């Protein structure tokens, strides 16, 4: 069964802290994505990675960075957390060359920055 896991379901951090969100997929997928989801704004793409050590900026990369050292793991880093980064963060992955480009999502991490 396809599985994307995220390191935490709920996280509370203070302004200025460095925050790491981890995502792991067990499907040998090439592409991995980080989104944030906010009421009224929907899903917004932060970064995606199409291979190990490769990354591309999404629509809202400011204040975030990513790391992909291994194919199965994609990390989102908030260098200095701010209150406007309070959100639900969703990780997803896709298989290149599949018959359709379904994105498989993790359960999400709800981050609160105080």
């Amino acid at each position, binding site marked *: 069964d396809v599985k994307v896991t995220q390191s935490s379901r709920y996280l509370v951090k203070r302004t200025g802290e460095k925050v790491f969100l981890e995502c792991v997929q067990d499907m040998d997928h090439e592409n991995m994505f980080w989104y944030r989801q906010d009421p009224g704004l929907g899903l917004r793409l932060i970064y995606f990675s199409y291979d190990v050590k490769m990354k591309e900026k999404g629509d809202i990369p400011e204040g975030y960075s990513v790391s992909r050292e291994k194919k199965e793991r994609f990390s989102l880093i908030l260098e200095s957390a701010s209150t406007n980064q309070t959100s639900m963060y969703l990780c997803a992955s896709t298989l290149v060359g599949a*018959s359709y480009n379904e994105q498989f*999502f993790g359960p999400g991490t709800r981050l609160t920055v105080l």
Partner: protein
Amino acid sequence: QKEVEQDPGPLSVPEGAIVSLNCTYSNSAFQYFMWYRQYSRKGPELLMYTYSSGNKEDGRFTAQVDKSSKYISLFIRDSQPSDSATYLCAMSLDLRDDKIIFGKGTRLHILP
């Protein structure tokens, strides 16, 4: 004009009713159209997938694409309380397209 427009709802209907969820889009180059379902406190999961125009049926769910009007729909027949969720439309240009454009989602409540 936003690339994908979707009414956020909430939409409340009685159990057993037919539900119609819709999205409009502006980019006529989109070819792949999807509906994702997201339960509360969970990630979205793919519900239906269609290519180009036409209808696709899967049990109580029917996805419809009208490319001439840039309009897609999801119909749910005999709606159940377990169908209560947020439904997100999504679309992409082709299979090589790494990025999928999502609508903002419509919250649906099925009242028992």
